[in-house]
């Protein structure tokens, strides 16, 4: 039976590809309906098949906890000492991702049929969207890091194409390019990490073999620093894709794309790829508490920073974008703290409520004829009841009020952040060989005349190294409290800005022009249905991870247990029920405070209090409005110097050598710079030859 189910995996992946190719090649020649049907139906079929896979996996897991479906399409490359397979893996983790990608993917397709209906490029749009789903499925279903990387690049390319979808607007095209370039920076880290893994781990980057490899310490990779380096490089890649500091700058700009795209790619799926990757490689990351802490702290800072920017933004999509960055930060807090299940749980719930929020925002924008400024909205609850109610539910969910989804996932993250700590003893044991070898090396290096150091010295050295390591791991513990504090702060801000957004949009008086108001309309059914489904999921999806009863009802953790077993070996910790309930109360209190503040300041439209606060804290307000001037900073320290170097070379090589000599030379000669000019005019080939002679001289200098 397993093999039969496995066959579904390539079909799930390839169906959207076929749809994308069809629409890309023939879409412009077929009717709109055909494009919609082909685009949506392929993804829907994939979703149904995914559900079948999920169901069978459930049955299989009941029998054998380690069950997973694997399918090898073909042997891809086998060259030298490394090999990649085109192979798929559906284990509990990827099964969940599969459902999210195809499920939300289908809803967004459905939504887009209405949203993009009057756009001339609808065929192109659906082709890209299908290709995106294909790439994302490759990413989550791939059986090895190479497949993940292909999907990773694929989603990047699709995202680039979709951000720049309305490319006639130069800003939007440039936003696409910015996303691409920033992602490439992250990709360098990722590629180097893959290479290092290839080099150190037997030339295979298959998850199964990597996991086996890192379960046993008797191999070359038993040095904690190397593992930390690899993990950090991987995290650089994750930073790029999942928009973390310092590479988050592309995501807010990515809002230039069509709104359903923002919902699918820049909220629910692609941007969570970094989280997925770290959760996937949990067996590797847990070996390096230092790298994990970096992940956690970067996540925490990102969460607070993005949330604070979100406090003052006035563009409905920008608020949501910063909210996404902030929530992604949350997920990184979780995976950094070792709470991989909680991180993926938040990914899961976030996919629903954030997609719902984006689609709701899209419906508002659509209904108001492309108005995105919330200062020109207000009172829309009367015009758009469906949008308003679904939006409200999602806001409650993201703010973290019980019993909606966000409460459970956020609470799980905060609780585990303080509860967990690395199991130093086991780590010590894992690195035993590494420590000893380092000690041998150091002892040998200290001895002068190459005589062999005695056993005693080595043992002492080993002990010293070990103690140093343990101490450095212990030192990381307080940082968890910092992350917890930042997380709580971010939760407060989140509750506030989300409800500020909600109140500004749907309550108070309408602040735009009357023409738009008269034409404002609720979402048509193709848009309303996805909103309702997603809002429903935003309500119920959290119940999968009930924290009560000592984990007895926590279906989520139980489901992911086989994937995360190794991490549970190396990270430990429990909270007493009292502390746990206390934390829960605290986070509810924080969320309620945020909502309350938003209500008092924005409940009936923007109040004078809010405006007064903004004026009295002008510098802070400006910094937030200006997004901490990070874009400007990058422009100054990275882009301009690069441009300057390029400019310099341009002037030197192009202007001076080629332009001046070959093109301008004759002109100057005519203008009376006769001597120099005429020298240069017929001199250009001579200059080239001079270059050759210089080259020969260099060669000779090297060789003779």
């Amino acid at each position, binding site marked *: 039976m397993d093999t039969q189910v496995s066959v579904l995996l390539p079909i799930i992946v390839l169906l959207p590809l076929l749809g994308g190719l069809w629409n890309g090649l023939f879409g412009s020649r077929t009717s709109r309906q055909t494009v919609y049907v082909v685009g949506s139906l392929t993804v829907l079929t994939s979703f149904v098949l995914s559900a079948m896979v999920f169901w069978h996996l459930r049955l299989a897991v009941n029998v054998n906890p380690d069950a997973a479906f694997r399918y090898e399409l073909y042997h891809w490359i086998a060259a030298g000492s490394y090999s990649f397979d085109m192979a798929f893996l559906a284990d509990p983790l990827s099964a969940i991702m599969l459902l999210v990608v195809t499920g939300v993917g289908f809803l967004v397709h459905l939504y887009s049929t209405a949203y993009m209906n009057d756009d001339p490029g609808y065929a192109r749009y659906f082709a890209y969207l299908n290709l995106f789903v294909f790439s994302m499925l490759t990413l989550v279903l791939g059986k090895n890091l190479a497949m993940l990387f292909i999907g990773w690049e694929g989603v990047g390319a699709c995202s680039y194409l979709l951000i720049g979808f309305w490319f006639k607007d130069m800003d939007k095209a440039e936003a696409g390019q910015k996303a691409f370039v920033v992602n490439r920076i992250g990709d360098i880290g990722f590629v180097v990490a893959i290479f290092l893994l290839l080099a150190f781990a037997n030339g295979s980057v298959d998850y199964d073999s990597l996991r086996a490899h890192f379960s046993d310490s008797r191999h070359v990779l038993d040095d904690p620093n190397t593992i930390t380096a690899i993990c950090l490089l991987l995290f650089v890649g994750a930073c790029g894709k999942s928009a973390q500091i310092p590479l988050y700058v592309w995501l807010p700009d990515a809002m230039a794309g069509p709104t359903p795209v923002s919902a699918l790619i820049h909220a629910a799926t692609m941007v969570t790829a970094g989280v997925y990757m770290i959760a996937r490689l949990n067996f590797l990351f847990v070996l390096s508490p230092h790298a994990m802490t970096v992940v956690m702290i970067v996540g925490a800072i990102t969460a607070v920073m993005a949330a604070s920017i979100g406090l003052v933004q006035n563009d409905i999509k920008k608020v949501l974008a910063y909210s996404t960055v902030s929530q992604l930060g949350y997920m990184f807090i979780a995976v950094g703290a070792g709470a991989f299940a909680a991180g993926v749980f938040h990914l899961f719930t976030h996919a629903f409520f954030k997609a719902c929020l984006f689609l709701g925002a899209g419906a508002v924008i659509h209904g108001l004829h492309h108005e995105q400024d919330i200062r020109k909205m207000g009172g829309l609850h009367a015009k758009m009841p469906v949008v308003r109610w679904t939006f409200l539910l999602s806001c409650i969910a993201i703010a973290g009020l019980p019993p909606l989804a966000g409460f459970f996932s956020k609470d799980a993250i905060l609780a585990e952040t303080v509860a967990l700590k690395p199991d130093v003893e086991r780590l010590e044991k894992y690195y035993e060989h590494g420590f000893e070898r380092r000690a041998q090396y150091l002892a040998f290096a200290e001895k002068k005349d190459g005589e062999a150091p005695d056993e005693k010295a080595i043992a002492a050295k080993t002990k010293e190294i070990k103690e140093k390591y343990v101490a450095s791991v212990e030192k990381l513990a307080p940082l968890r409290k910092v992350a917890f504090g930042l997380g709580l702060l971010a939760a407060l801000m989140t509750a506030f800005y989300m409800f500020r957004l909600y109140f500004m949009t749907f309550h108070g008086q309408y602040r735009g022009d009357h023409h738009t108001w008269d034409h404002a309309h609720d979402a048509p059914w193709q848009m309303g249905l996805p909103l309702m489904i997603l809002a429903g999921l935003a309500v119920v999806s959290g119940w999968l991870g009930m924290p009560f009863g000592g984990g007895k009802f926590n279906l989520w953790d139980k489901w992911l247990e086989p994937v995360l077993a190794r991490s549970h070996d190396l990270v430990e910790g429990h909270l007493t029920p009292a502390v746990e309930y206390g934390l829960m109360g605290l986070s509810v209190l924080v969320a309620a405070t945020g909502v309350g503040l938003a209500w008092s300041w924005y409940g009936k439209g923007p109040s004078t209090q809010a405006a007064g606060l903004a004026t009295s804290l002008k510098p802070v307000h400006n910094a937030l409005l200006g997004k901490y001037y990070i874009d400007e900073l990058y422009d100054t320290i990275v882009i301009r110097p690069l441009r300057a170097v390029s400019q310099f070379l341009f002037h030197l090589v192009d202007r001076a050598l080629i332009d001046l000599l070959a093109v301008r030379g004759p002109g100057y000669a005519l203008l009376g710079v006769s001597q120099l000019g005429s020298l240069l005019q017929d001199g250009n080939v001579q200059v080239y*030859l001079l270059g050759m002679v210089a080259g020969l001289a260099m060669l000779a200098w090297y060789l003779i």
Partner: protein
Amino acid sequence: MLHDIALLSPMIILLFGALFTLVVDPFLPTATPRRFWGPFGALISGAAVLATAALWVSGNHEMQTPAFAAHLSASRLSLFFTALTAVCALLTHLSSPAFMDEQDHGFGEFYALLHFAAFGMAVMVAAESLITLFIGLEIMSLSVYVLAAFKRTSLASVEAGLKYFIMGSVASAMLLYGMAFLYGIAGGTTYVEIQRALVVPKPGLDLWLGLAVVLTMGAFLFKVAAVPFHMWAPDAYEGAPTPVAGFMSAGVKAAAFGALLKVLYAALAGGAIDSLHLSMPKMLATFAVVTMTVGNIAALRQTNAKRILGFSAIAHAGYLLLGCVAWVPDGGLGDHYHVAGAAVPFYLVGYALASLAVFAALSVVGKGGQELTGQAQLAGLGRRYPLAGAVLTLGLLSLAGVPPTLGFFGKLELLHEVLRAGDQYVPHAVLLVLNSVVAAYYYLRITVWVYMKPEGKVEREYIRDRSLTWSMSLAALAILCVGILPSRLMRMAAFAGGAVRPQVARAHLDHQLEVAGLKPPVVKAAATEAVLPR
């Protein structure tokens, strides 16, 4: 004798094509359009590819025997590169007719010269002696000079050809001079003789050997357009008719690297070179890094697609040079060979196909005798001519090394090989990666022009032609298909690389194939003897 001729069959086919075209063309009425020579040339080149494939498949290791008194050989390396250059010729034959007709220069000689150039390339890579190498090189170069200047009414084209010719003549002179020294040292011109002469260091010859190496390498660095021998390249690429520029960047580069590999590893190897303490790998690596960096940085500010690609060709020459270094693990060129060698041939295939695809797609703008490849002029191409836009994008992605294109695996393999060659190349490898990131920027810029720039008021016309479409589609398909299933080509490339010095490489190659789960080829003991001096 007959055996020798069988080995030559690809070259004979190409030569036949050249002569047939040349002689029959004048007898055709002047009014007859000469467009059909394109598909005819493609057939001929295709036949040459088939002949090469037959020789390859026949798998007879006697084939590795040098033919014509050890002046030519049909080793796997020769065959691999012969096939590659013939494929370049094939695609160029398909992409040029419509373009040349639009430029009012669709003469029969154009196609004959293409054949001659391909023939010269084949001779060059099959050469086992300096004389044959030089003859091949000159046949190729002279044909390409004329091809570059073929649009004789265009100043740019004539300038391109003339500059290329003048610089090329100097390079040829250098090569000849270097060869003369080598001949003086070795007392023979075949690679085997040279290698035999260099086995033992001879006192008093160091200076002459050094001079010989400097001059020979200088000429090769010119042919592959390495900095600072590169200055002709951007002008020549920009001025030459677009399909010719594609042929130059793909075919000439492939042939030059094929010949360079042979000269480096079949001729200039042995104890004498080691004893000189020549830091040849170090030198090549330095040139490689400088070349890729200069090429990439200079490309950043260009606004003409053809010129960008000229600089990009320089950058790729840098990558490939580094790949050549990777064949030597450490220091000298002694006996510790490490000929995995798949990287350079493999990379070249990817590079050549991508270049041809890009230039073919760029030639669609050559309507009515113009060549509008500037930034503003390319705007809207993606929408008005989706196929050209798509092929262009795919080719650029492959050049940039984005998966799942062939270029990605080329870079991967190259990087892998460079890293394997030794720790001293780690900085070079890092620079290679950084360079390819920089390069992605300007490749992307072209796609931005093509897809995202606002179109001007002028409704542009594009060349729409069946054989051009074929050329674009074939190149694009090859990039994609081989990108998705690269392992077969990789294996062939490993065979080719292993053929440079079979007697040394065999053991390593067998090991590598074994690791890859493939069966090592059965080798007769006699076959490995055959390449050694008799």
